[in-house]
């Protein structure tokens, strides 16, 4: 018998209340886990896409607050960038989110410079790659193929123009797996943006140092007003959707934390009110006020820890479920990690302590003689 077991025993006395409280906390924690893992997954997936492409730096228009960086004419910028030290390749990319089928949600349509390094990281699972920059064909990601019910040889209509699907590819980035891919030239034509790109990808040579990269960024800032050179990570963290999803996950953390703490607060306050006499006995038996506080806080923390554990399981389930519903397919790729779960558990402990603090304080301040008189 020790404090922990005694606390556990106290919670077991009221199984219905304990499980209700745990469920309430678990719901909040589940929302936190699901949203946060999705927000991180979203970011990581974009990051993966950029990393896999072998892109070291990305050049876009500055002040892009929208989902996609706004398009710009590539030619002159490309020339300036190609002339910078260590720059090996400068490749344009155009992307748009478009509806290509009436019964599927919008998908990403990417246009990549024909036969550039960008294509190298993709794995062709079926068919072939486009044969020429001017060939009006698309290759589609495995997930997109599944969602749009398309296979090699089918036609797909993009912005009123018909394209033949000539191949299906796989990528380790879920964003690309769910996308349609064509040559930049074709993408520019179909979106009526001749000569334009959203992004210029820079690949640097092997002996480029961090300092060299910083130098390139600095040069871009000076010689190309209105443009920024950033690493893929920076681009992703500036992405509006990433920012919104992160803000949403933060808001959820805040709300769930508050609700969780309030639930614990309410439960523990009720519990100590019922146990006034017992607390009086414990005080009479020589329990110190600190020990009473420890007991009540232990009970709160056990509640919130249990809620946290259940919440993590439920949250993982929710994220997994969301990944697999049609509307979300290929757009999210929830990420979980042990440190993340530990942080969630730490959050639940904190809300347990916060919620339990006042009831614990109140219990420890009870006057033993009057507590004993209580029935």
């Amino acid at each position, binding site marked *: *018998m*020790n*404090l922990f*077991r*005694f606390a556990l*025993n*106290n919670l*077991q*006395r009221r199984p219905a209340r304990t499980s209700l409280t745990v469920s309430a906390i678990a719901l909040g924690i589940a929302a936190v886990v699901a949203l946060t893992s999705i927000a991180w997954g979203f970011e990581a997936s974009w990051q993966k896409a950029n990393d896999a492409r072998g892109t070291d730096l990305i050049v876009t228009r500055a002040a892009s607050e929208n989902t996609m960086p706004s398009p710009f004419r590539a030619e002159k910028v490309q020339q300036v960038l190609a002339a910078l030290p260590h720059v090996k390749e400068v490749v344009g990319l155009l992307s748009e989110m478009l509806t290509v089928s009436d019964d599927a949600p919008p998908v990403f349509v990417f246009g990549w410079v024909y036969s550039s390094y960008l294509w190298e990281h993709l794995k062709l699972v079926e068919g072939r790659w486009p044969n020429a920059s001017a060939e009006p064909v698309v290759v589609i990601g495995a997930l997109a193929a599944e969602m749009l019910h398309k296979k090699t040889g089918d036609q797909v209509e993009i912005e009123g123009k018909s394209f033949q699907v000539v191949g299906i590819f796989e990528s380790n980035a879920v964003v690309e797996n769910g996308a349609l891919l064509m040559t930049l030239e074709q993408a520019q034509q179909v979106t009526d943006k001749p000569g334009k790109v959203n992004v210029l990808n820079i690949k640097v040579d092997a002996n480029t140092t961090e300092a060299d990269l910083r130098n390139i960024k600095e040069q871009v800032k000076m010689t190309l007003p209105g443009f920024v050179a950033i690493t893929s990570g920076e681009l992703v963290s500036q992405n509006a959707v990433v920012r919104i999803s992160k803000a949403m996950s933060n808001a959820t953390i805040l709300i769930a934390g508050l609700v969780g703490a309030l639930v614990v607060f309410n439960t523990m306050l009720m519990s100590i009110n019922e146990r006034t*006499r*017992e607390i009086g*006995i*414990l*005080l*009479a*038996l*020589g*329990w*110190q*006020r*600190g*020990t009473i506080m*420890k*007991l009540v806080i232990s009970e709160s923390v056990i509640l919130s820890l249990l809620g946290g554990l259940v919440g993590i399981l439920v949250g993982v389930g929710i994220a997994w479920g969301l990944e697999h519903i049609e509307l979300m397919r290929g757009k999210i790729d929830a990420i979980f990690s042990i440190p993340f779960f530990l942080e969630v558990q730490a959050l639940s402990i904190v809300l347990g302590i916060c919620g339990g603090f006042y009831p614990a304080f109140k219990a420890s301040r009870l006057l*033993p*003689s009057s507590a*004993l008189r209580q029935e």
Partner: protein
Amino acid sequence: MSTDPHILPNNLSSARLPILRIEGLTLHFDGGQTKALNGVDLDVCEGEFVAIVGASGSGKSSLLNVIGTLDIPSSGELFFGAQPYSKIKDTSLFRRENIGFVFQSFNLISTLSALDNVIVPTIGCAGSDHEHKARAESLLIELGLRERMAHFPGKLSGGERQRVAIARALINRPRMVLADEPTGSLDSDNAIQVLDLLTGIVKQQGLTLVMVTHDASVSARADRVVRMRDGKIALPVGAYGDTPELIGGAP
């Protein structure tokens, strides 16, 4: 046997210092409206068994609460050995180190086994869980509950419950046991058994026992009986012409 509170009983050395000295103690509630204790003076010697008797509302339990530091006196002073109560900084610690409580209604925690109930007061004390458990077991064995340790209070008889409560009062090795009508909820057979065990163990360990009781057969076994009336110690029994059976009837 003397009943004068200021005369030490014959079987104790008059040279011994009192473990408890109470001087001019008052306890008022409701801003002085209710006078639970109204000037109590009392000495209790180490190892002495003092029974406090008196009608309901005479202040017996209030006196016990003040002795046990559960209530703070309105005026007057108490000394535990040489230490004045008013100088005790941590009353919880004081209780834990010096006082063991036994209540009329047992006050066991119903969801804990007999053994765990005895261990409860050790939570937060020095020593390992193992040591506390060993001591609790030996106390329960001593109180004849070897076979009942794992039982929950609901499965124990009244007498057994009170024996568990006694073990609980003794677990932290107090110097003084305060018992508030410990046999009040028991039938006479159980009451005698519990009383025998309590007084036996208290004598054996040289502890001081202050017991509030209604039961003349209980008070008769005390070294000294103190009568309370209207929040005061009454004068020796004879002077008030109390019925002798209250203090008599000893076996």
